[in-house]
């Protein structure tokens, strides 16, 4: 039983951050998207797209930063399919999301075979973003918190910043205000002359960018090559995080950390065979948490009023 004690150390927290980063990114993306009124269950697919293009670009340019950019942009562009389908063509959001997921697998595998002659995994990129890990002087010396938050890799830092930015965007900016209004009471926004469609397109696009970034993290920062099935359900965990986080940036972040912790903990439980619980018990944790959240056991969890509600200006015609 001394095992338990030795699990609980700084490394566990570092691992927690490492595992939660992609979830955090996708989750805050989803938050923005759903706050604008578009339900997005396609994060899984977008992540895969992002991871793939990031790896490929990094591989052929030899520059991970270009890879990063490629991943983010690819995610953004791919997400626009969802935007067009749901906003312009008024397709059911969940349906579109499901189709997006199916599509992404096909696209990536097809391109894999085209480019590398085989699916599975790409060759290792010459240099990954991990190489750019840097400790913030001073801060990183703080015991425990130092190594956890201030000695990290680029995208992890970005995720911290992005959480704050999302918070500011939603709370403090005009666009953020409009976006939230679009998800709560679209007509109110339209009647004061702000385009609901624009806001919703924005929401979907941003979530695409962030999910793409999450993918890039998986392929070119946390590892040095792309592998099919890399996302491995993280997109859905992100959804879970967003919901149990009550559709807020901070909430999503905390939930993501929580889920990351559960995963890190689970691996370490195995390393020292302390009490033999099937790892699955920990893996399903996020999903159970989400069910509890929507069951209303989590107070704050209130979806945007017009989340998933189609908006048609023509309707106001008569």
């Amino acid at each position, binding site marked *: 039983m001394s095992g338990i004690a030795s699990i609980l150390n700084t*490394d566990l927290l570092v691992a927690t951050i490492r595992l939660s980063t992609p979830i955090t990114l996708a989750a805050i993306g989803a938050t923005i998207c759903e706050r604008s009124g578009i339900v997005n269950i396609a994060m899984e697919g977008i992540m895969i797209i992002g991871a793939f293009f990031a790896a490929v670009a990094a591989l052929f340019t030899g520059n991970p930063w270009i890879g990063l950019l490629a991943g983010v942009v690819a995610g953004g562009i791919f997400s626009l399919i969802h935007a067009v389908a749901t906003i312009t063509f008024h397709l059911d959001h969940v349906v579109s999301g499901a189709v997006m997921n199916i599509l992404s697998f096909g696209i990536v595998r097809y391109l894999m075979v085209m480019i590398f002659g085989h699916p599975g995994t790409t060759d290792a990129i010459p240099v990954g973003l991990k190489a750019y890990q840097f400790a913030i002087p001073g801060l990183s010396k703080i015991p425990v918190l130092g190594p956890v938050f201030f000695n990290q890799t680029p995208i992890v830092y970005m995720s911290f910043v992005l959480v704050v930015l999302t918070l500011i965007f939603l709370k403090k900016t005009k666009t953020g205000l409009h976006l939230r209004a679009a998800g709560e009471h679209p007509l109110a926004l339209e009647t004061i002359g702000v385009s609901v469609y624009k806001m919703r397109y924005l929401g979907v696009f941003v979530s695409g960018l962030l999910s793409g970034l999450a993918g890039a993290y998986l392929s070119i920062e946390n590892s040095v090559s792309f592998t099919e099935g890399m996302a491995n359900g993280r997109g859905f965990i992100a959804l879970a995080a967003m919901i149990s986080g009550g559709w807020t940036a901070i909430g999503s972040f905390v939930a993501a950390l929580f889920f990351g912790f559960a995963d890190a903990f689970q691996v370490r439980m195995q390393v020292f065979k302390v009490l033999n619980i099937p790892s699955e018990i920990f893996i399903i944790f996020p999903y159970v948490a989400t069910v509890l959240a929507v069951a209303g056991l989590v107070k704050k969890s209130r979806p945007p009023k017009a989340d998933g509600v189609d908006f048609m200006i023509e309707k106001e015609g008569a």
Partner: protein
Amino acid sequence: MSKVTKITVVMLVISMVFAGLVFANGGSEAAPAAEKSKVIIGMATDVGGLGDKSFNDGSYQGLLDAKADFGIDARVVESKQQTDYVPNLSGLAEDGAQVVFAVGFLMGDALIEAAENHPDTSFAGIDIFVDPSKAPKNVEGLLFKEQESGYVAGVVAGLLTKQYASASDRLNDDNVVGMVLGMDIPPVERYQAGFYAGVKSVNPDCKVLSVVTGTFTDQAKGKEAALAMIEQGADIIFQIAGLTGLGAINAANEAGVAAIGVDVDQSAVAPDAVITSAVKGITRAVYLTIKADLEGTFEGGGNKVFGINEDTTGISSFNKWDSIVPGDVKAAVQKAIDDLKSGKVVAPASRKEAGYEG
């Protein structure tokens, strides 16, 4: 007729034409007008598929080697789901393949099924145990004594992690090594048991950790498992997890410790970190099987076990580490190999035998 129906009819016609065009001059031509003269050799991989930088690719390499030497027409197909196993195997046979390989433990039942239904084609299953008592005569299981590769690799790890830790700054004195497992299937277990035994044989008080990730495709999980063990002082990580393992090697590389690859020489993944790889000569086994069949010496109905005596199991060259690894270690490796060959040492094939509860 209403506009709608008109359009429908038109579309139907189009689709008919389309179909017609597709079936024009008979579907049977759908099979490629491949070089009929050449012998066709087929290979079906399981869901993992090619590009695993491990045993699927290894097997494929064997096919390519044979192609190079015997000028065969090599065909490979990946399965998308388990319902595809049988049709792909029998399909290859029906396409006229002379030998059909099933790559992967999970295709075992499908292999037998396909073999039973195509008695004129030779079938071979990599990592598949064929029960001689009821298996048809045209199917052969290609098994490997992974435990032997594991054992030799274990010797390397056991010595380097403690006695010769000074050899590289990637090694420490904590006397801990770790293993990252994919799904806990027999070949994986054999590697694990062998490795454990190997380590203990030269370094009895070494702490050997291992984590089952339960997947062959999730790099992040493999990385996490490796790091978790590195935190505990492990300075050599042995990956037995396919693509998941790439994450483990990557983790070792980043964490500044060493790793040991699996199945094929994986030093390319991270030249600085990968000391060596515990290889099982899949490539060679495939090649030999094809050769045998072409020479008409293919005998099925049982298993061919490739071990150290066939020079198909063992470890790859040290590559970048060649200069680092001390001569004594290399000597010990040679000794271990000799002992295994002479049968002086028998590497355990399961955790039970190894007495490892990991």
